[in-house]
């Protein structure tokens, strides 16, 4: 299979799974003819028809709840939330319903629901169109959270998410939609719950996910020139977290820098740090570091936005401060 973009990889995974299983239906705002704000679902309504690609009204809590109900009785809906910021409107249906029903119904029910949504800043979209809110869901038992960094993982993880019998939040990166990469096998399913070593190194582990993996790899390349060999661990799944992979890498390098695009306080990186501090403490040689978005709303002005986001430079500085 040729090189393709992250967006195209997602589109293919959707199409393949819809082909494979007629219970898979898509719901979301403007996902039909328009193809969604980022055109990820473009062409699918022509191929699968309006009964399987449903344009919804602007009713986030409502249509997520509709998807929960549909999932409960046999469909496998994939919902698109146009920007992750809007997921704030749907928290009740996701948290109090989707994530809980399997457990609180004593195992009778399954909610095979995928919620796809683009996260992240860097496009000058402002405070309500730029957030990375995945940490909320990492904190919610009963929902899995994945956040791929490559077209290949986006494709394979989305297939896994759609086949999973549990709710899965599938976090996409706006800035990666155009990024190209190999997707060798249309049947490849990437298991949920496993991190991947994106680069090997001995001196320090850079732990990242989604677009931050790309920055971490760039930083690693730059640091190599300074003689610092970084291992880059791409988490890929945030819940359940691949604690073993984190601990194994940190045990080798004895140092870790966690890179996340969400705001620092209470972010995903905090959980990663806590896991290391609890279970990997003995092998650690130096303090942990987090490189994250500053604790403020995302300003619209591009210069301000850039200033608060993680960057290759900031990663390099954090790594160098440890060594």
């Amino acid at each position, binding site marked *: 299979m040729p090189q393709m973009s992250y967006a195209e990889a997602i589109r293919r995974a959707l199409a393949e799974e819809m082909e494979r299983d007629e219970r898979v*239906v898509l719901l979301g705002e403007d996902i039909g003819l328009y193809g969604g704000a980022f055109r990820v679902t473009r062409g699918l309504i022509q191929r699968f028809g309006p*009964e*399987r690609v*449903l344009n*919804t*009204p602007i*009713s986030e*809590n*409502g*249509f*997520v*709840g*509709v*998807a*929960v*109900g*549909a*999932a*409960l*009785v*046999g*469909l496998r*809906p994939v919902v698109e939330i146009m920007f992750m910021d809007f997921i704030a409107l749907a928290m*009740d*249906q996701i948290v*109090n*319903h989707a994530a*809980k*029903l*399997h*457990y*609180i*119904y*004593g*195992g*009778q*029910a*399954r909610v095979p629901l995928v919620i796809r949504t683009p996260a992240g800043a860097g496009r000058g979209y402002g405070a309500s169109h730029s957030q990375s809110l995945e940490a909320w869901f990492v904190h919610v*038992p*009963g929902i*899995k959270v994945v956040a791929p960094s490559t077209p290949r993982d986006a494709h394979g993880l989305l297939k896994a998410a759609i086949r999973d*019998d*549990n709710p899965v939040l599938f976090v996409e990166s706006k800035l990666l939609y155009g990024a190209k990469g190999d997707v060798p096998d249309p049947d490849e399913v990437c298991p949920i719950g496993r991190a991947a070593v994106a680069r090997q190194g001995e001196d320090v582990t850079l732990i990242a996910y989604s677009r931050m993996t790309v920055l971490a790899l760039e930083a690693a390349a730059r640091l190599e020139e300074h003689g610092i060999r970084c291992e880059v661990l791409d988490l890929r799944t945030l819940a359940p977290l691949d604690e073993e992979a984190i601990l194994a890498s940190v045990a080798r390098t004895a140092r870790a820098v966690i890179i996340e695009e969400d705001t620092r306080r209470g972010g995903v990186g905090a959980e990663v740090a806590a896991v290391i501090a609890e279970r990997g403490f003995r092998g650690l040689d130096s303090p942990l570091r987090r490189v994250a978005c500053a604790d403020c709303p995302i300003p619209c002005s591009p210069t301000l936005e850039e200033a608060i986001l993680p960057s290759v430079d900031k990663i390099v500085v954090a790594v160098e401060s440890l060594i």
Partner: protein
Amino acid sequence: MACEELGYLRLMKLIRAFEERVDRLFVEARIHGTTHLCIGQEAIPVGACAAIRPSDLASGSHRGHGLALAKGLVPNRLMAELLGRRDGYCQGKGGTQHVASLEHGFLGTNGITGGGIPIATGAALAAKLRRTGQVVLSFFGDGATNQGTFHESLNMAAIWRLPVVYVCENNLYAMSTAIRDAAAVERLAVRATAYGMPGATIDGNDVLEVREAVARAADRARSGGGPCLLECTTYRHHGHSKSDAREYRTREEEECWLALDPILRSERRLLGAGELTPEALKRLDAEVSAEVDAAVDFAEASPPLDPGLAAEGVFA
């Protein structure tokens, strides 16, 4: 018709006996937590479920024991659920506000006011797309009609012409808040206008009227006619939940409504028509009471789930 009403009367009495027992179990501290009794409102779930098929679906509010029993759940396992026991429909994990039995097509009671409305709507979407011929009943209270989920759900059901009947149990109050203070409309049924769907107000304390109205609505929905909103007027005899002194309403108002009790009305109708004798009535009461006794025995004999397994079963 009349002999069918006998069955409804029995079911309404079973629900009431069940609820009264739940109330007592609370007083006796044999149940913990909270509960919302549907005493006074039994005609709505009974009439509504009489109008649909067993394969149809229903979803309820927090005040949902009556709907659960009307949808076919058995008192034993429902009581076990309320007592937090292993043989409860949800192994005691769900409890009163989150009890479901999918094999009965009962999608669950719901502790989030308005939370069940989109879920019922989604089940109707699935029924439509999968062409199962099912209809879904979505139950909620007057207070829930002020939630955004009500609006968003009814709108989607209307534009997609989903096979769902929205059953609003208007018992005049949401907790302590009178619906006249929480909505500036005389009748909640007019809210259907906003979605281009039919709305009607019916006497929710008349089991036959409920059955007829729901039957018409369900037929229409099943044949592709789309959703509708039925406002069923009723009254809860007890407080909102166990700790409610009912200061927000008068004893006079309660008297008036007690006289409109749905069970009394069916009894009177059946006795008047000679379909029921005072003796048969007594037998009926004894029967349902025994059934509830048995449910409590069953539930109390059921152990709780092993606490060591409490955190298991989060994922399928």
